[in-house]
């Protein structure tokens, strides 16, 4: 176990009271627990409040485009299977703009861990509905109340039999730390959806609102039981189950590319004798 100090302390641009602060702390603890030093991992993100996370700890950072955190994250792992790859991004970034990559990443099953700061709102752009915003909420973009059925990331991930599906809450720091640790340790695509109060724009799903609802999943739950997981995943309301909902054990894609058995792609000299052979097929 490392000291969390090695990840540094940085001034953030987050509002005081924002759930992101606690997620950052839990993340550092998880990294320390996992013995991952800053130079051993890459932290990817998109754009949004949550997506600023990699700027607030010492790490290799790929802070890309809004909605596009997953494609580079997967490619980094496929280019360097020795790297640990984490992703932090918001609900809008991950399930809105980035929805297609979310589906594809579950299916592709590269060994990365995705932490979604799910504040059920677009924070950085000041309060439009996100895919997880509750039906009926009046927002700047839907002054008449949101009509879209909220996206349930847990239900979709379990329906698609993602390799690791968990939920936590920024107000349960130890729990969250544990979820991240388990997610990183589990091979393949791991998703941790974290309920996160946005004090500035989400006046419905407040800290107290989540606190009241987030209930650790019963220890008897077997995450390999898909039917049970599907039930838990589709529970969101008076009770929000937090914990590991589902686990699958498909081999990660990075272990299936024969090319990657030899390690990182960087610095490989062109295999000219192989190219020569290919060329001669065209004679």
């Amino acid at each position, binding site marked *: 176990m490392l000291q969390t100090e090695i990840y540094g302390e940085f001034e953030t641009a987050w509002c005081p009271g924002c759930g992101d602060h606690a997620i950052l702390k839990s993340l550092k603890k998880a990294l320390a627990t996992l013995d991952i030093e*800053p*130079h*051993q*991992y*890459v932290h*990817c993100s998109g*754009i949004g409040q949550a997506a*600023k996370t*990699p*700027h607030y700890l*010492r*790490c*290799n*950072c*790929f*802070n*890309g*485009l809004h909605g*596009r955190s*997953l*494609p*580079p*994250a*997967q*490619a*980094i792992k*496929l*280019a*360097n299977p*020795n*790297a*640990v790859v984490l992703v932090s991004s918001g609900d809008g970034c991950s399930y809105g703009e980035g929805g*297609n*990559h979310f*589906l*594809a990443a579950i299916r592709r099953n590269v060994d990365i861990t995705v932490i979604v700061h799910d504040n059920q709102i677009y924070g950085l752009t000041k309060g439009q509905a996100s895919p997880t915003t509750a039906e009926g909420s009046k927002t700047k973009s839907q002054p008449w109340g949101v009509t879209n059925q909220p996206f349930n990331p847990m239900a979709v991930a379990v329906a698609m039999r993602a390799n690791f599906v968990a939920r936590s809450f920024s107000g349960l720091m130890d729990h969250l730390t544990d979820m991240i640790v388990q997610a990183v340790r589990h091979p393949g695509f791991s998703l941790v959806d974290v309920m996160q109060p946005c004090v500035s724009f989400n006046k419905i799903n407040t800290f107290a609102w989540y606190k009241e609802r987030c209930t650790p999943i019963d220890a008897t739950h077997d995450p390999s039981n898909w039917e049970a997981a599907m039930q838990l995943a589709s529970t969101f309301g008076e009770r929000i189950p937090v914990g590991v909902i589902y686990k699958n054990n498909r081999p990660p894609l990075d272990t299936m*590319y*024969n*090319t*990657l058995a*030899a390690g*990182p*792609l*960087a*610095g*490989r*000299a*062109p*295999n*000219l004798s*192989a*190219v*020569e*052979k*290919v*060329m*001669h097929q*065209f*004679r």
Partner: protein
Amino acid sequence: MQLTTANILIGGEAGQGLATVGHLLTKALVRAGYDVVITQDYQSRIRGGHNTYAVRTAVPGEGPRVAAPSLAVDILVALNQETIDLHAHDVSPNGLVLMGHSMTAQEVKALAVPYKDLIPKPIFENTAALGVLCGLLGVDRAYPEALIAEQFQKKGQEIIDQNLEVLARSIEWVMHQDHGFTPLAPAPARDVHLALTGNEAVALGAMAAGCTFCSYYPMTPATSVPMMLAAHAEAVGMVVEQAEDEIAAVNMVLGASYAGARAMTATSGGGFALMVEGVSLAGITETPLVVFLSQRPGPATGLPTRTEQGDLNLALYAGHGEFPRAIFAPGTIEQCFHLTVRAFNQAEMAQTVVFILSDQFLADSVRNVEPFDLTTLPPQVLPDGSDTQPASYERYAITESGVSPRRLPCMGQSLVVLDSDEHTPDGHITEDLGVRVAMHEKRMRKHQLLREHVLPPDYDGPESPELLLACWGSTLGAVQEAAVQLRQRGTQVGVLHFTQLWPLDSATFLPRLQQAGKVVMVEGNYAGQLANCIRMETGFAVDQRITRYDGLPFSARYILDRL
């Protein structure tokens, strides 16, 4: 007198195997030492429709290297009546139609091949057609024989023998016909050439450049590049990943490139349109990105299987905000290979996006080339990759050249921080507007760097020609041929061919333009996009633009008709 050149047009429906006949004939000709250029014209469907495969061949050294389609057909191979109806009027006076027995050729001289007698089953028709063609053209039967043995190797000796039998019978048959068709003069001896399409040469170039990562979403006419990379991925050591969409493709390439892979993507206009945001990300994060962009006629879905040069402007301005880039436009198979190698090196040198701008004509056009000499390739330009003083490493250190030392994440102690926001030298998000200016100017200095390394356009002709034909990319062959014909008529003609479209360094071409009597730009688009760029950069206005936007490649005749 024997022919020094011949143009064979094979026509039929998709699924009838015309590409197979064409391909075998091409290989036979190339092995026999002839030059070839193939033009494929096909519809966006899998079966049916009307497709053609044109094999233009020539005895090397006799006249200019053939590198463009020709309208006049010497042998029309009709796999169906429609082919005759559509193309009979293109058959030259000494030409011939090869057809099945139930077809009619009207005015044109025709040879009805008794397929029924020559072959045991319809599936052998391709072999019979090949035999007849080789017989007519005078190609030594050893070449088609060897090809058939290779082609059916996996199917066993019996199949091979049956095909050889059909081949022999077909050659025999045509020898005894009174067709009056003159065979090709024998080709001088040479080392064996490759028969390669533009896209195959690009894929070979990528492999030879040490490309280790390609992600893409299928789109005609670019797909054959990643398909070929996938076919050889394990052998050469490459990750070739089909992405969920083009946005993922370009962002994956950027991730892989950040992590140290030499990485590329391949697409066409509509797919590239979706990559525009990612191109901008390459710009601000200074991540090497190679984009193979194969053009087809737009807008939108347009004509998916036809050719055009309509996306130069898009490649030049893709991405919001301003940042440097380079655009290469190969005009030959050799250039497809070498410019691809160069693209990877330039992308790393300037840490930005580099385009290889091709088109459907070149993508699908088989030509013979000498095998590439892999021992004399330029050395790989590689990321810094060191790890000294990791604590003070700055990914975006401000430098005079604009290029900052690029280290790789998880390959040492240095932390590599990349950011799509404006950032400090150490890569972190900033709103310090002074830093912004310094960072923006640092990036833009790389435009100058790319300019210093620009490839000057190739010029062929007298110092002060009466007429200068300027062109870029795949139009080269047609322009060269037009120039030869004009010279034969006594006109002093120069040909200026741009293989790099951006940056432009006027010193490398403006004097040529100014010295010419009349400057004509030949481009496969409506606006004259390169002519516009040249005017923007130099003020020079060309005298005439010959443009084409009907989906077909240029021919010499098309150009001559418009001069």
